[in-house]
């Protein structure tokens, strides 16, 4: 039974998507969301079970291509798999009551299920080509979600935003594929477990550097790393709430996960050569993202730029090549997924109610007219700025600690400078979040909002969707061992440290 758990994780949402495809139109519209809740709920349950059992599946898939269907779940992937199934479940539950203007729920739920297949596959794959296939599978449903259900009032329109998104990531993927092929063909295998065990043995230094650059560029587009980030703000501003939540909560993590799962263990020498550049770009992303946030006017765009900063932390952590820094990167991955997912839910709720996310048009007074929504926004902002005691802190702290004592092969002085700059980024992050709260949540409401009858506070349904995320942010903040106990051994193994 355990052998089938992981394939089941992929088959469940895939079958769900197919069922929605064949169900006739009118009844399909009606049952789509409850059906989606059922499927994603079941998938979540299976993922919890699988985490407890930590199984592995390895069968021949396309022998001619050397393509193996090798799936596995370990301390590295399990947290991300759980994050994926949880957020997808919450998104479908959210759709029960809160529906995008474009309706057509059957198609939307089907696409979300398809998206889930791609996301889970990426995290479960232990074969580079399989990883790549799932990495690509994600693009199409996300394009549709943005282009069909998005907000058309963004500059350039939602279709342009969706196109920019897919264009960037496809270009990235092409480079990623080159890197994968280079490694796979030189090494003679695409199997990640075997490649990680070899630790780059048999690959020349030039090959490793080239491969790392190619892999890194492909993954960095998805992450996104400065200066390849410019698809992100547009995509987020246009995407519907559920799209934004999954995009920020899960899709971005596929890039950083790829770094830790593939790029570091497979071509360690290449990583060593390129890491200083990766670190510098990560830190530039932190500073750039937070400065951009200080001057943003659109709330969704602001959260998108804050993602650039937070993912900069993750990249910076990876670039230290030290167990502490990578642990931090993984922690920050999960924390960012939860916190930014929550932020997009909240900002989406604000936008649904006001039909705008422009900070100047919204004015102040969210605490006043919707206290629960305002309070939750304050909570999410405080979590996102990395307050100790909430999930966001440990990732950032470990990344900085990793930079304080990077891998011995790297220049310590250089990383200390980067660490200090990242510290400036921490202060700037604090500044823009309290500034947002000051402009949106505090103060008094404009007359127009006071008169609007439809401005309800967070509903019980919304609170039910958000509360698991809030609870996890607190739990991961107070009990960091929960996650670190799982990731630490895997990180050590991948780095060859035993």
């Amino acid at each position, binding site marked *: 039974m355990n052998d089938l758990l992981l394939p089941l994780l992929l088959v469940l949402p895939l079958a769900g998507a197919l069922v929605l495809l064949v169900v006739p139109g009118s009844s399909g519209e009606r049952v789509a969301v409850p059906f989606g809740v059922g499927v994603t709920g079941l998938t979540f349950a299976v993922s919890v079970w699988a985490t407890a059992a930590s199984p592995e599946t390895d069968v021949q898939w396309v022998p001619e*291509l050397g*393509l193996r269907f090798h799936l596995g779940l370990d301390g590295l992937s399990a947290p991300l798999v759980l994050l994926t199934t949880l957020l997808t479940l919450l998104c479908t539950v959210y759709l029960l009551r809160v529906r995008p203007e474009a309706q057509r729920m059957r198609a939307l739920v089907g696409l979300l299920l398809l998206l889930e297949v791609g996301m889970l596959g990426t995290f479960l794959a232990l074969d580079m*080509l399989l990883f790549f*296939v799932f990495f*690509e599978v994600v*693009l*199409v449903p996300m*394009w*549709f979600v943005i282009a069909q259900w998005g907000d058309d009032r963004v500059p350039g329109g939602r279709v342009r935003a*969706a*196109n*920019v998104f*897919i*264009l960037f990531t*496809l*270009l990235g*993927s092409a480079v990623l*594929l080159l890197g994968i*092929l280079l490694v796979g*063909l030189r090494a003679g295998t695409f199997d990640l477990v075997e490649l990680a065990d070899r630790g780059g043995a048999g690959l020349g230094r030039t090959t490793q550097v080239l491969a790392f650059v190619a892999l890194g560029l492909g993954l960095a587009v998805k992450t996104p790393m400065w*200066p*390849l980030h*410019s698809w992100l*703000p547009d995509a987020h501003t246009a995407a519907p709430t559920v799209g934004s939540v999954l995009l920020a909560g899960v899709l971005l993590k596929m890039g950083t996960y790829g770094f830790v799962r593939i790029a570091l263990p497979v071509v360690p020498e290449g990583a060593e050569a390129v890491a200083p550049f990766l670190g510098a770009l990560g830190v530039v992303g932190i500073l*750039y993202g937070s*400065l*951009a946030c*200080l*001057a943003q006017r659109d709330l969704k765009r602001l959260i998108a730029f804050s993602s650039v900063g937070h993912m900069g932390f993750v990249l910076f952590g990876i670039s230290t090549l030290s*167990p*502490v820094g990578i*642990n931090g990167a993984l922690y920050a991955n999960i924390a960012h997924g939860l916190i930014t997912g929550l932020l997009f839910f909240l900002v989406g709720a604000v936008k649904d109610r006001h039909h705008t996310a422009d900070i100047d048009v919204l004015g102040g007074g969210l605490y006043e007219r919707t206290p629960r929504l305002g*309070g939750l926004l*304050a909570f999410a902002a*405080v979590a996102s700025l990395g*307050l*100790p*005691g909430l999930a966001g802190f440990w990732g950032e702290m*470990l990344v*900085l*600690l990793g930079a*304080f*004592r990077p891998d011995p092969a790297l220049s310590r002085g250089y990383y200390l400078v980067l*660490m*200090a700059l990242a*510290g*400036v980024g*921490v*202060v700037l992050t*604090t*500044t823009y979040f*309290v*500034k947002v709260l000051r402009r949106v949540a505090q*103060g008094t409401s404009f007359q127009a909002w006071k008169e609007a009858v439809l401005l309800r506070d967070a509903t019980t349904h919304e609170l039910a969707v958000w509360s698991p995320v809030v609870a996890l942010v607190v739990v991961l903040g107070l009990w*960091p*061992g929960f996650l*670190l*106990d799982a990731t630490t051994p895997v*990180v*050590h193994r991948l780095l060859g440290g035993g």
Partner: protein
Amino acid sequence: MTLVYLAVAAPLVASFVGLLGGRLVPRLVVPVAVAGTGVSLLAALVMAARAVTTDGLVERASLDTVPLGGGLSFGLDLRLDGLAALVSVAVTVVALMVQVYSTAYLKGDPRYSSYAALVSLFTAAMLLVVFADDLFVLLVGWEVMGVCSYFLIGHHWEQEGSRAGAVKAFVTTRLGDVGFLFGIFTIGQVFGTFSIDRIVADAALQNGRLACHVCQIAALPEGTITIGTLLLLCGVVGKSAQFPLHTWLPDAMAGPTPISALIHAATMVAAGIYFVVRLYDVFLLSPTTLAVMALIACVTMLGAALAALAQDDIKRVLAYSTVSQLAYMLAALAVGSALASTFHLLTHAAFKALLFLAAGSVIHAVGTNLMPAMGGLRRLMPVTFVTMTVGLAALAGIPPFAGFFSKEAVLGAAEETALHHDGPAAAWTGWLVLVVGLVTAGVTAAYVARLWLMTFFGEARGGVAAHESSPAMRWPLVVLAVPAALLGLAGLPSGWLPDWLAPVSEVAPGLSEGGDVAQVELHVGLVTSVLSVGLAVAGALAVWAVWRRDPAADPAAALRWRPALVHAFYVDDLYDRALVRPVRVAARAVRRVDDDVVVGGVTGTGRGARSLAGLIARTQGGNVTAYLTGLLAGVLLIAAGVVVLT
């Protein structure tokens, strides 16, 4: 240790209950908030009683060990000792008084439930700092306290002053805290652990406070320790509002007055000092850091006292006096006496909480913070008048009130270092602290006299008929007046304070006391007493002489440098020009760059690549089939590649 858990958990639970259920069951808000802090106080009292009766009480408990990778880890560790027990009593007494007082002060406030819950959370966080035995655990409490103070300062978020004050407080302390975090890294690296107990034991062996006959003592790198302690000092300076990060505290007075009493007088600002006391053995290893502390303390002490002399807002006078008094504590640490520092911390907690609550009572009655609109309140508010007089006398260092003894202990320690320098602190720091401390004592008495005279004497200048406050506000004043008056007498002569404050470690067997290398005993010196009281009387008399000529006018109006003092030497304006504006310009620049260059550039590259590849040429129109073709092409490419090459 059960008592420690109880003390921390009770207000924590109270805050969760208040935050989640406060709006649903408003009747429960007051009982829950008061009970949470009350339980904490009881636990703290029992612990303190045990600490007094048990010589060298130390208990430790570890909830979990968290691996960080690369062999590093930290523990969710707590520790109970005499120092922690004593400070926890001070924290919980003040917190309980504030909770009780707030029930009346914020009566009818629609946001009272979240307010009370945040005060509870704040109390829990401070107690976590007090009992933490690991630097990261301490940091959690440290920062949660910071965010609670952000929310509480911004309680009146309809007002611009509150919003700005909250932002400033949070961002300024965060700035210091980044340095603090890096300091934790550095100290952790030097000692190979983040456990406070082990760090202090190692440092104490190094500086000679502890001796060990069975273990080998490896020399610790002084340079790294200096860097580490200076970085930690950044956080301390931010939290305890010392120059150059002091500017947030006066602006934080926009919060409700009980909050000023709790956060900005007795607890949060004290956390910085408490932290140095906790790690004092480490700080003693670096004479450079001690000298920097002395300089910071002296600049802050005198500068803040002068600024207090010219403020019209009664709360701002008290805020600057807090900054100045905290500088006394830091100065005591700089000249080698953690005991004098702790002593002043405790007496200050009592009399400053009293002063803020009394000021709140006055503000509640007259409806303004401005002293020029007060006057003549002595007969209208007798309880407030008497209790506030006690607090002011303690602040001014008039014997036999508490502040006199603790300030004397600080000056005595400075004198000791100046004359018989044998510790790590340099003799010149002793002289510096002594001279500046004496001058500041005179200035302190002057601003105290000004506040006292302008508020309570002369003719009533306010339009509203003032009246004495309700019992829930009066009783906390009376309760706090007792330690403000007597804590010095009780604490100093009997000598019990020094005995059980000396931190002892149980970490390694074979440790013994190595003698009094560092600690300077508490004492009241004749010369310093006469000088400080004399200067205080002179300062007060000078103000009185000016005031007597025209009781309706501001005695500070005669000062030639008044504008500079009112603006606290224009430090805020300097920061605005040197930091705030450049960041704003940079942010705008980044936004412009992102709109034009990056998007344009990358889209341009994309366009070039597209036309070259020709595979996905029609993507411009959003043609989905083109994307799918692209994907398929990718998969085909894999297939072809694998087939051809294998």
